[in-house]
């Protein structure tokens, strides 16, 4: 739980984190019972940093960030514990009114599906203008509109004057996602949360969106939390990576180290499932087996039914591994009893 904080302290807190999440647990009510969507996770993000969160579908990535901004449905989500310090305040303790000040101003979100994320009956210009005017009482309609045009041209939407007057359905997927980014940037947020910003787009468009994101970051100098399945995107943009599995962080590392030598069997399996150059099949090879139900989690390590390293060892079956340093003094964290064995495997591989 607090392993990461300790690691930070050891490193010497030379900088204050922009956002610091601690011990966050979220359950969701569902037909099948309480879903333990997020379990005691914690992370920090610093100014100017790109932090990627990866993990397969349903591992709790979206829930963990949406909770921070109070975007989960109140009748569904229960925050069991947690703090999220941002600018001296705990986001999880703010009232709706104060949280609204933060949303879209200090922290913005880009959602996965640009198709569904714009209101179909309002023009793009209206929707971007709204984002501006909500946080700036003095902004006139006209001023907000012209600023929307500027924003659109910044993210590379051609002919922005006309585009502002158009409706979402008149945009292509890629253009819509650009507009989404423009809207998120409207108030120069210090933190941008991009929840699978490229998943719904095809390959060439994805590359363009990545460029836009990079540009945005340069422009605003803010931090980005990048949620994605796409390890290629992680490699291109991220500084640090969190790997989530079944509601927990199972590995945390700098992007280079993570790709060079994963310290968790799950991460390793993820990397192995990447299509390689020369690979004929289009399909992403996936890890065999399924994530356990988050309603009834198995005892021990949540990954053990699928783990190739476990060999059904008793420790894996009975004791949940804590997230801890892989080597003492290292900044790398892993939640595996046998993470050190992966070193040997790596050597063996080469």
């Amino acid at each position, binding site marked *: 739980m607090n392993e990461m904080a300790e690691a930070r302290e050891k490193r010497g807190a030379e900088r204050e984190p922009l956002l610091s999440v601690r011990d966050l647990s979220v359950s969701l009510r569902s037909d099948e019972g309480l879903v333990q969507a997020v379990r005691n996770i914690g992370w920090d993000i610093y100014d100017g940093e790109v932090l990627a969160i990866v993990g397969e579908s349903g591992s709790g990535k979206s829930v963990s960030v949406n909770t921070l901004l109070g975007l989960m449905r109140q009748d569904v989500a229960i925050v069991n514990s947690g703090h999220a310090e941002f600018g001296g305040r705990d986001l999880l303790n703010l009232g709706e009114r104060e949280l609204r000040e933060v*949303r*879209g101003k200090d922290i913005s979100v880009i*959602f996965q599906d640009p198709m*569904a*994320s714009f*209101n*179909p*009956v309002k023009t793009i210009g209206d929707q971007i203008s709204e984002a501006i005017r*909500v946080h700036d009482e003095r902004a006139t309609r006209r001023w907000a509109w012209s600023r929307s045009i500027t924003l659109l041209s910044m993210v590379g939407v051609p002919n922005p004057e006309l585009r502002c007057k158009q*409706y979402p359905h008149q945009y292509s997927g890629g253009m819509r996602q650009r507009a989404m980014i423009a809207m998120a940037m409207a108030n120069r947020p210090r933190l941008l949360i991009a929840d699978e910003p490229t998943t719904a787009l095809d390959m060439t468009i994805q590359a363009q969106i990545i460029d836009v994101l990079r540009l945005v970051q340069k422009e605003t100098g803010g931090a980005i939390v990048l949620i994605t399945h796409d390890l290629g995107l992680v490699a291109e943009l991220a500084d640090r990576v969190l790997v989530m599995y079944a509601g927990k962080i199972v590995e945390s590392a700098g992007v280079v180290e993570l790709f060079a030598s994963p310290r968790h069997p799950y991460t390793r399996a993820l990397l192995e499932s990447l299509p390689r150059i020369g690979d004929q099949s289009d399909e992403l090879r996936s890890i065999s087996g399924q994530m356990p139900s988050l309603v009834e989690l198995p005892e021990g390590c949540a990954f053990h039914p699928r783990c190739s390293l476990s060999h059904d060892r008793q420790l894996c079956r009975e004791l949940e591994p804590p997230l801890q340093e892989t080597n003492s003094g290292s900044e790398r964290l892993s939640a595996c009893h046998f993470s050190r064995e992966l070193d040997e495997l790596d050597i063996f591989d080469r």
Partner: protein
Amino acid sequence: MLSYVGRRLLISVPVLFGILGISFIFVQMLPGDPVRALMSPEELATASPEYIEQRRSELGLDKPIFVQFAAWIGEVLQGNLGHSFRRNTPVADMIFERIGPTAILAITALSIALIIGVLLGTFAALKQNSWFDYLSSVTSMMAVSIPNFFLGLMAIYIFSISLGIFPTGGMRTLAASNPSALDRVHHLILPALVLAINLIGPYVRYTRQSMLEVIRQDYITTARAKGVPWMKVVFGHGLRNALIPLTTVIAIQVPILLTGLLVIETIFSWPGLGRLTFESIMGRDYPVIVAIVFISAVFVVLFNLLADVTAAALDPRIRL
């Protein structure tokens, strides 16, 4: 947009033709001589048998049924909806005379029902499964289940007879030669409310359902993520989307509204088309009833068209 309206109009043509067909069947079913039904009493009084026969062949009534149908359509298109059995007036004039009061009552009732129904439905959706939601769904179910004539009688019993707040019927105080606007409103409230209650139920239900769907959409989360206050999200972003499917519901409700007018105008002695229908049925003035049936059906088609156009105006995706 214009071409969209044009296309919808074109789709309505076969339906209008079908309505003409069924109305013509009604005309055929009527007891009595159709020629006489089309003539005014004065005309009839002076008409010689030869003249009637001449009219008969003019109207093509000695021709095959399809020719007759065509001839009848020709008459209808010229505005000849036949002649009243009872009164010395063309049916078209009688209807024209009564349309005003009916329109006032119908539009008032529809507006009341829409405002209350949409608000109730919206808040029921926002407070899903709360006591408010439960209460509003049970109440709206009751509103559709209580027959409007019983509701009307109870309203008169409670508000007019027992409490004496509203008049028992009519459109204005008869004694006053020049009734004030207030007097008219006073007479309008009770029948309009009773009429509205029957319509509210479905509006609540479908607004709730549509709103529940809408507030789960991603764009609602996007709006919240921008920092827009919740009520502004609901009414600024949600409502317009939720209203799009409601236009269809309103259009489908129109025949029910017309039926309601018949009963409510009768109970409240409201001098509109509904009351005319009742009077004509009591007096077996069939040409009038057939004409009203025909006009109502045409109106329903036109209203459907209007609903489609409204939906298109609300939803830029349909406009193309």
